[in-house]
């Protein structure tokens, strides 16, 4: 396989800056500290719930740590990837190298993919660097290796969509400041503002449709774009996870995910899986399982579609011959 020249150059560039080793060190240190804090928190919650039965609690601790670490990774991607990708194209424009690349044999798509891959490969390296800390919950039990792979798949899928959106916004932007602001806005839209959109969707559409979840409820489409819910969906199985009233990091998110998938809690606090054809519950009402696939699959499909669109749009923006010459934004470097 021939390495994309842009990718090769960017890897060199990223690791030659003076701040690169410091950033790397700070990242590993911060993640290690967070995971240690998560461990302490899990230990505290387990002790509160299980008292002296710490051996019994290790499985719970593993699960607790894994859930919080997964959410932490999603948050890290949301905050790091825009910073890695937002300057990718606008940076070339500002240092006046974009037109030099445009007259080479590289296609606009190769250029954009090189930019995206360089941002993601750096993120991948960051993830590999903290892999031991992230995999620590495996030692405690309560999760499987498949759970870990599922969570990482969503994290990487989220990184791809944030990276692709950031590169697209970078291609559109006239200044690096605008590109960075736009990239963070896009990232927060998926990760944080999606909850506000969910709330709005519930209030706008749910009341007159017989309830949002379960029998007769409609799909909550805004859940499809949120990475936190996708992680919960990917690593939890609603028919196997016990809801025994002990708070866990996933608890508030599980309510949304399970109910969207047609599963509800029994009055005793146990999850009731609803078999095809539905079940009769206490008041005689039939509760029918919605014909809805798992949320995480839909999220990955939506992320894939957004990523492809963003990449193609970005490639189109930098395609030449153009109607107008590339407007060279004045940068400190250019004006110096």
């Amino acid at each position, binding site marked *: 396989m021939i390495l994309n*020249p*842009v990718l*090769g*150059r960017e890897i*060199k*560039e990223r690791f*030659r*800056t003076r701040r690169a080793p410091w950033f790397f060190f700070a990242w590993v240190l911060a993640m290690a500290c967070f995971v240690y804090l998560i461990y302490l928190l899990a230990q505290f919650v387990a002790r509160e719930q299980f008292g002296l039965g710490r051996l019994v609690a290790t499985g719970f601790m593993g699960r607790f740590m894994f859930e919080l670490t997964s959410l932490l990774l999603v948050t890290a991607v949301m905050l790091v990837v825009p910073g890695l990708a937002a300057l990718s194209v606008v940076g070339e424009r500002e*240092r*006046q*190298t974009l*037109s*030099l*690349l*445009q*007259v*080479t*044999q*590289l296609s606009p798509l190769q250029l954009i993919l090189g930019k995206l891959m360089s941002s993601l490969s750096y993120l991948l390296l960051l993830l590999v660097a903290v892999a031991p800390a992230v995999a620590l919950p495996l030692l405690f039990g309560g999760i499987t290796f498949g759970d870990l792979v599922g969570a990482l798949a969503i994290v990487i899928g989220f990184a791809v969509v944030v990276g692709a959106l950031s590169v697209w916004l970078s291609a559109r932007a006239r200044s690096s400041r605008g590109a960075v602001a736009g990239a963070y806005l896009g990232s927060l839209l998926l990760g944080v503002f999606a909850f506000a959109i969910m709330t709005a969707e519930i209030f706008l559409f749910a009341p007159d449709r017989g309830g949002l979840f379960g029998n007769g409820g409609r799909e909550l489409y805004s859940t499809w774009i949120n990475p936190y819910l996708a992680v919960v969906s990917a690593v939890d199985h609603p028919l196997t996870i016990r809801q025994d009233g002990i708070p866990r990091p996933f608890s508030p998110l599980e309510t949304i995910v399970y109910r969207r998938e047609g599963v509800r809690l029994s009055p005793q606090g146990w999850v009731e899986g609803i078999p095809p054809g539905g079940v009769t519950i206490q008041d005689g009402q039939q509760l029918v399982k919605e014909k809805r696939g798992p949320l995480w699959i839909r999220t990955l499909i939506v992320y894939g579609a957004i990523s492809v669109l963003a990449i193609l749009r970005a490639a189109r923006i930098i395609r*030449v*011959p*153009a*109607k*107008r*010459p*590339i407007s060279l934004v004045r940068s400190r470097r*250019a004006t110096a």
Partner: protein
Amino acid sequence: MVDPISAAGSSSTPVVSFEGVEKRYGKLAALDRVDLEVPAGAVMGLIGPNGAGKTTSMLLMSSLLSRDAGSVRILGNDPEKDPRSVRKVIGYMPDFFGFYDTLNVSEYLDFFAATHGIKPHARPGVVADLLALVDLEGKADADVNTLSRGMKQRLSLARALVHDPQLLILDEPASGLDPRARVQLRELIAELARLGKTVVISSHILAELEGICTHMAVVDHGKVKAHGTLEEIRTTLVANKRVTVRVPDSQVDATEDALSGQPEVTEMAVERGVVRFLLNGDDAVSARLLGQIVGGGIEISEWRVDSAGLEELFLQITEERRE
């Protein structure tokens, strides 16, 4: 307005061909029905004041900009319809450097060689050859930021040459260079011409182009005002030559009388023992006038005809339109 003249000696297909090319930015006509041909092996100077349309022409040749009307062909290929073919045969050097701070000189060239699809095993040889050509062999491992402006310009030229293009498009390459660096650049372009490259070069520094170019196109307000070899432009477009006649003081009035009736003579000025005027005609007209004066018994000690330099031609051609 002066009609463009065709380039001499262009027996083969021109490397660059513009026919009725138009390009507008809003209401501004950057190029207005431009016809231009650059024959193979020529060093064509594009000369014109700021905003004349030089850079726009070069962007069209480089497949970076689309035209509004007309036809552009680079070695027979349309840069809009088949940009990848055009990019294989052109080397473009804009009027800025475009370096990556973290790459050294040889890595920079290696990267651009890779972007042109040169295989990894061939790239070290290509880079070494280019560094030798632009006299930067000793700077292969140097940070680009440590290079002088002249060296940076030569490195940019090496970048444009990395895929061995047939046509080099150099936008204001001498801009900001010290005299020594300009001489080096001029020698380098001459060497490239000897290697068979066709070069299109734009500049405000007219004297620089006069020494390098075989052909010239004067561009002003989006139009090609003159186009051809330097001699063609001199003889065909600008007939006015400055003539200085030195005669004895006693014969100055007679000389003035003899010349004043001639339709080809304008702007005559008389000083002690010297008559100066503009001659609107070729060498034959000059010889005829000289014969008439000598035949009238005037003793001429000097008859000097000065052709216009490139600078003067440029001013004459661009002034003409303003008038």
